[in-house]
């Protein structure tokens, strides 16, 4: 890293409005079983932030893996964990964010400690 010579001074271009995640809006309403061109990009997004482990050959199929990852994402962001690409989920995914993953090495720290605890009802003897 410290020998990298790729650093450049910031040179923003305010006329540019591209957002690499804008295309996610096209997926609104999609659910398991659908096949949508570009869905592999959303899988790549979920992989980048730790929600999908495997990084091999993402397809455009809305499969079990994507549904499971979506549910986890929705739980982490306090959305309804439907596994469907509803409007709320898609809009949140398109918002700029920190590049650090939410889940690292399969450990979901973001919401795992905040789920409601199961109440155990016991009878003393």
């Amino acid at each position, binding site marked *: *890293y*410290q*020998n*990298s010579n*790729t*650093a*450049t*001074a*910031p*040179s*923003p*271009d*305010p006329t*540019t*409005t*591209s*957002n*690499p*995640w*804008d295309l996610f809006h096209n997926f609104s309403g999609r659910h398991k079983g659908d096949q949508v061109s570009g869905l592999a990009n959303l899988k790549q997004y979920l992989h980048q*932030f730790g929600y999908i482990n495997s990084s091999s050959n993402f397809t455009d199929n809305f499969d079990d893996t994507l549904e499971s990852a979506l549910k986890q994402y929705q739980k*982490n*962001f*306090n959305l309804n964990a439907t596994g469907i690409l509803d409007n709320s989920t898609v809009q*949140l995914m398109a*918002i*700029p*964010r*920190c*590049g*650090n993953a*939410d889940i*690292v*090495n399969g*450990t979901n*720290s*973001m*919401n795992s*400690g*905040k789920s409601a605890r199961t109440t155990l009802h016991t009878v003393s003897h």
Partner: protein
Amino acid sequence: YTFFTNKPTWPDSKHNLTYAFWPGNQLQSNAKVIFSRAFQRWSAVTPLNFTETDFYLNADIKIGFFKGDHGDGESFDGQMGTLAHAFSPTSGLFHLDGAEDWVIDGDVTTSTSTVAIDLESVAVHEIGHVLGMGHSSVEEAIMYPSISARTRKTELATDDIQGIQELYGSNPNYNASSTPSDTQKETSDGGVRI
């Protein structure tokens, strides 16, 4: 609030931390002040202190704006998308995407640019990572992973404070009943950019 796996922190012997800016960026003083203020938010609630140094390679925390592949395996993606990232203690690496439309002065919320991103808001968040904080699911928290363009969020929420104090303890002068005020909303010129 959450922490990185295995809860890494800066050791007790390293509570006076130095930070430096990547010389290639040649940041002006008005940009450096933003980072100073962001560090101050965390030092106000912990025993940690932060001092700027000119010696980049020797600094505990190394801050730089980079574009695309910058050698750490986490390439930036151009405007919007990923804004910044930082590494867990005691790495100290804190990188911002040089392609963003960073606003350093003025009121970002009235910016005419639809892609204006408030630098201080992102800086406070990334410093949280540098110190060992993970992402929070509390939307009001600084450590919430997403922030919209033309949005300013710089004050630590209770969730952030509880988290960082679990790692380092409290600043002896910290008064939980007084929250820091945001004094950066005095102008409405749409902001000055880097």
